[in-house]
């Protein structure tokens, strides 16, 4: 087999996706401003479409380079692991800022909201109803994704498929329940610091749940196409790590915003 290099690193081929991604992100964020200022979502949706197409084609290329071309040697896989760890760390810091905002407003409630938390007039969710079910759902999905991982490592194709399918199902179930909660909420994002902190924190968490569910769905379809082997399945591991991160953020959200803050 002809080897293009005498080293085990992967120097990637020229690709248009970083440029289309940057352009798409620019259009997306400008579109958000236009949405807020002019009540028009067109630019936002256009930016969303460019980002989605970029993500699909970029990650499709990575799957091709790793699975079909065999360019992901052990040292390349190590680099990918570090990349995912650093990315998840940056996301932890992102959520840290929203928790800071929540505790800033709730530990010393201001005069304007009645020197109390929840503020006067705010009806918070009962933490022992749907939010508790959501907690159980995410914890359960952590179990199913671990089951899927062990099945892959133990060469069990069928059980890995079931574990992944259950995890995705639980993720969709969480998102649906949370959407219903948002619809039924007695307060909005503009209802004092309570509404702001609640919807910013749970809203970004919800986006991450959707991203994680999508990642796991892609893993499910890759698994069905036999992209994974029992030793080499980093795409799945990255999705599982991300999913556990999403679960942990929810636990913090539940304990501080829903339970302590309710």
């Amino acid at each position, binding site marked *: 087999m002809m080897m293009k290099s005498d080293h085990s690193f992967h120097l990637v081929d020229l690709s248009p996706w970083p440029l289309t991604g940057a352009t798409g992100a620019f259009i997306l964020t400008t579109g958000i401003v236009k949405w807020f200022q002019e009540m028009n979502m067109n630019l936002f949706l256009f930016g969303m479409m460019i980002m989605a197409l970029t993500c699909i084609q970029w990650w499709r290329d990575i799957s091709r380079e790793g699975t079909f071309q*065999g360019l992901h040697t052990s040292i390349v896989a190590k680099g990918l692991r570090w990349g995912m760890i650093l990315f998840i760390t940056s996301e932890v810091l992102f959520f840290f800022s929203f928790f800071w905002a929540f505790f800033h407003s709730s530990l010393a409630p201001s005069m304007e909201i009645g020197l109390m938390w929840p503020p006067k007039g705010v009806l918070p969710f009962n933490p022992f109803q749907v939010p508790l079910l959501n907690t159980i759902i995410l914890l359960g999905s952590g179990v199913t994704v671990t089951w899927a991982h062990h099945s892959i490592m133990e060469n069990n194709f069928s059980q890995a498929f079931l574990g992944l399918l259950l995890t995705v199902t639980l993720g969709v179930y969480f998102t649906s329940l949370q959407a219903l909660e948002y619809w039924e909420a007695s307060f909005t994002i503009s209802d004092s610091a309570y509404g702001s902190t609640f919807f910013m924190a749970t809203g970004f968490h919800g986006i991450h749940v959707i991203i994680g569910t999508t990642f796991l769905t892609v893993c499910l379809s890759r698994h069905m196409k036999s992209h994974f082997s029992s030793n080499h399945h980093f795409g799945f591991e990255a999705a599982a790590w991300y999913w556990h991160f999403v679960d942990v953020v929810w636990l913090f959200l539940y304990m501080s915003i829903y339970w302590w803050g309710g």
Partner: protein
Amino acid sequence: MAGVIARTAATLARARPPFAASSLHTSSVRAADKLMPDPLDHATGLERKELEAIARGNDDPFMMKVLKRAAGTKDQPTLIPSFHAERLVGCVCHEDAFYINYMWLYKGEPKRCECGYWFKLTKAEDPFKFK
């Protein structure tokens, strides 16, 4: 809905008798379960070459490891494999050294580091060719 999922999960996760042992690592596998592909069989390209080299006993096919020096005397210099007529060598003179002493090593010209150890260039074998 939650009850249906819980019951399905319980059914699927119920403990099963272990399957017959084989060279693949299998446990709790039912007779009807499909298996994953064999990792070496599944690999391709450079990744496969790396796995094949490791399977043949060479655990450092890309020569990334730090080599431990041999006697390092003028008569028995440490042999440095290279595919070309020259190679950059970095000598870690002693265990607590806080710098690496780099030097170019040329074919046919054994060289001595300032710390006293000798190096000599040798022809490297292609780690990916079958013998």
